[in-house]
């Protein structure tokens, strides 16, 4: 038996070694992000946005006359697999990469790409990715964390809440938001007291104990740093215990599944989210097109990813090649590109301009945009 099995293993590895020989006539573009694993939902929503944009461009003859081909690499939002995924994309000679879903993975990928790849993220919101200016060819179509937190704090101050609790899911996304909120509130207290600042374990079976803590602290408002899945559990258990604390969450909460899960408990929950992009008819068309291929929701980052792709393709079309990053950067920062998510233009550091956050409140099972001050 030993002989047969070992030959089988040898044969298997030989076959795998061959690997794919890709045809050269298409313009290969890379996507790095969480296709598998716990945060696959966010990775896929980026991916679907990209596929939609590429489908549109290819229908109109592709970029520089070549059909665009997307090369996918999974990194499960983990820094170490992001580094190997990024190296794989790099060694296939890709010049344009979209993604790396999570901030941690994006950072690790950037250290691999250095300046030999132009990268556009559509979901990594951590401030320092662009703030430290270490990566000239890194852009992102999602606004940074420090855009949405002031909107939340302004709302709290406006409503005159005095006791604020801040919770986060101990993830790099959630914690960054929570800390920004804390810094903002502590900088100018105006009598607002932070009664609780803690992390909860994401995916916990029940949050009763944390909810009891909230009740004991008498928190009037809860600022949540994290995604909608844990938030819905928190909301359910808070309303279940008759707690009236108002919940404010980031764009991670601005997701239709939150309403479905929390149902009656979602009433009155506030979330800062992207501008309501699905109103324009091109957006409706995009959603319809998406539905034909996938049975899932479009996900929060669908439009950001599509917008990123359309902006970069427009710039590449003008520059005429995909290697002259300086020229591409000039176009991306100077001219505004009409995309499915509206006008897209980047600032010198690579952040998108003019995509403010707006505040939504769940009324009657729907996100209703509040007129921001």
């Amino acid at each position, binding site marked *: *038996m*030993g*002989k*047969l*099995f*070992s030959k089988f*293993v040898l044969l298997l*590895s030989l076959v*795998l*070694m061959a*690997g*794919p020989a890709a045809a050269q006539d298409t313009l290969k573009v890379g996507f790095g992000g969480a*296709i*598998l694993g716990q945060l696959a939902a966010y990775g896929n929503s980026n991916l679907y946005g990209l596929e939609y944009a590429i489908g549109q461009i290819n229908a109109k003859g592709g970029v520089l006359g070549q059909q665009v081909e997307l090369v*996918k*690499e*999974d990194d499960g*939002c*983990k*820094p*170490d697999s992001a*580094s*190997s995924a990024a*190296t*794989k994309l*790099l*060694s*296939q*000679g890709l010049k344009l990469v979209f993604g790396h879903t999570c901030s*941690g993975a994006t*950072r*690790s990928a950037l*250290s*691999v790409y*250095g300046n*030999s790849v132009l990268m556009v993220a559509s979901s990594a919101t951590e401030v*320092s990715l662009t703030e430290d200016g*270490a990566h000239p060819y890194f852009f992102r179509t999602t606004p940074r964390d420090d855009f949405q937190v002031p909107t939340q704090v302004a709302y709290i101050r406006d409503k005159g809440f005095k006791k604020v609790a801040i919770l986060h899911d*101990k*993830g*790099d996304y959630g*914690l*960054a938001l929570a800390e920004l909120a804390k810094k903002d509130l502590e900088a100018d207290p105006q009598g607002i007291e932070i009664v609780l600042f803690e*992390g909860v374990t994401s995916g916990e079976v029940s949050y009763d104990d944390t909810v009891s803590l909230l009740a004991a602290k008498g928190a009037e408002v809860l600022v949540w740093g994290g995604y909608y899945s844990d938030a819905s559990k928190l909301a359910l258990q808070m309303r279940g215990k008759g707690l009236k604390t108002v919940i404010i969450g980031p764009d991670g909460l601005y997701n*239709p*599944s939150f309403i*479905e899960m929390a149902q009656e408990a979602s009433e009155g929950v506030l979330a800062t989210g992207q501008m309501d992009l699905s109103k324009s008819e091109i957006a409706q068309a995009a959603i319809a097109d998406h*539905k034909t291929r996938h*049975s*899932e*929701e479009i996900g929060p980052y669908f439009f950001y990813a599509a917008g990123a792709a359309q902006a970069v393709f427009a710039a590449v079309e003008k520059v005429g090649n995909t290697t002259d990053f300086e020229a591409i950067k000039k176009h991306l920062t100077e001219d505004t590109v009409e995309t499915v998510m509206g006008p897209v233009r980047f600032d010198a550091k690579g952040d998108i301009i003019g995509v403010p956050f707006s505040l939504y409140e769940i009324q009657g099972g729907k996100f209703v945009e509040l007129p921001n001050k």
Partner: protein
Amino acid sequence: MATFWICFLAFPLVVFKINANTRSLDTRWDRLYILAGSVFVLTFIWRFLLKRRSFDRLTKVVNEPHGSAPKPTWLTRLAKSRQRGRLLAVVLLSMCVLPFLSNPYMVNIVTSALIYVTLGLGLNVVVGVSGLLNLGYVAFYAIGAYTYALLGYYFGLSFWVCLPLGAIFSTLLGLLLGLPIIRLSGDYLAIVTLSFGEITRLVLTNLDFTRGPRGISNIKPPSFFGLNLNGTPKQFLIETVGFHPDMDLNRVFIYFIILAVVVLTIICVYRLENSRLGRAWLALREDEIACQAMGINRTRAKLTAFALGSTWAGLAGVVFASQITFINPASFSFMESIMILSIVVLGGMDSIPGVIIGAAVLILLPEQLRFFSDYRMLIFGALMVVMMVFRPGGLIKSVREVYIHQASDSKPEPRPVVTALSTMEQGAEDD
């Protein structure tokens, strides 16, 4: 028959896909037919392999009842072959040449594989040689990585200073972990080490000093006497050797460092195992009571096993941190401990070539399977089960040291062939 069973089994999950947005189920009968077909073929192969396996096991017993270790497969024979020294030299040489011929992706993957070889060899000292099931091994790996990251971040210490420091810190941690487990055995030991691993990860997540989940970024790669590697040396190499242009020379330098670490680990682990201390560990694994009756202090043996097992994880951690330049607690989860344990068990307990092969298979395989993209981990999980079912003793069965005794001058020159243990067929504890 099995096919119907599997189809009936998978029926609800495969056919009915929950459509989240329309809150309904769309039925996909076509997928059921594909499933039925593939499973039908698979069950035949499975039956055939199983029959071969039991038949093969029978022949083994029949034709050599008194034989020494069961007839080793060609893999073990290869490892046991006379020209072992030459074989090792060839492998080492090819590893050195590799970066100059291949692309950055291959270098990166082989570096990760080598890191896991070091981890596997370290864990092998604890699990394979001393029989102490350690499920929290990732804690030492994390300590190594964080030593370099934090010291670099706060005090700007260089890689070369942190490498030994990382090893020392994780050895101390190994001792610390050793204390509570002295009176424990078997699965209770596994649980305490598991919780120890989780506690370490949670401490790293919650402490501000370690910057929690934000992690630590731009960790400096090791400097080659302060030379800017990607400058002139790279041009020089590109002309002379036709170096892959995109290759980042720092990564190649890390590759050579980890290669040196692996060679160092192999030598030390091999020497340890064939020393007095190593034999004490082996005795500890075989039978604790008898081991004590031989005058071996059980506590000291366990502590040294844990401490010396974790040293190598510390080294690997420092190199890992320099390789990916950004670490956060998420990459030191319980799953990593499990992966390292699988390398040791799958490769072959207490067999150095086995652990090396195990690391190569378990690290390179998922990367090779990238070709299947979405189905990557699915096949990986299935392969793990298949490998365990057909090679319960691991890929390379470990064969005991053979002492050839020159009859004449009664000077038995201990010419070690390969350290080995034929797997405990009848289950570990039988007293």
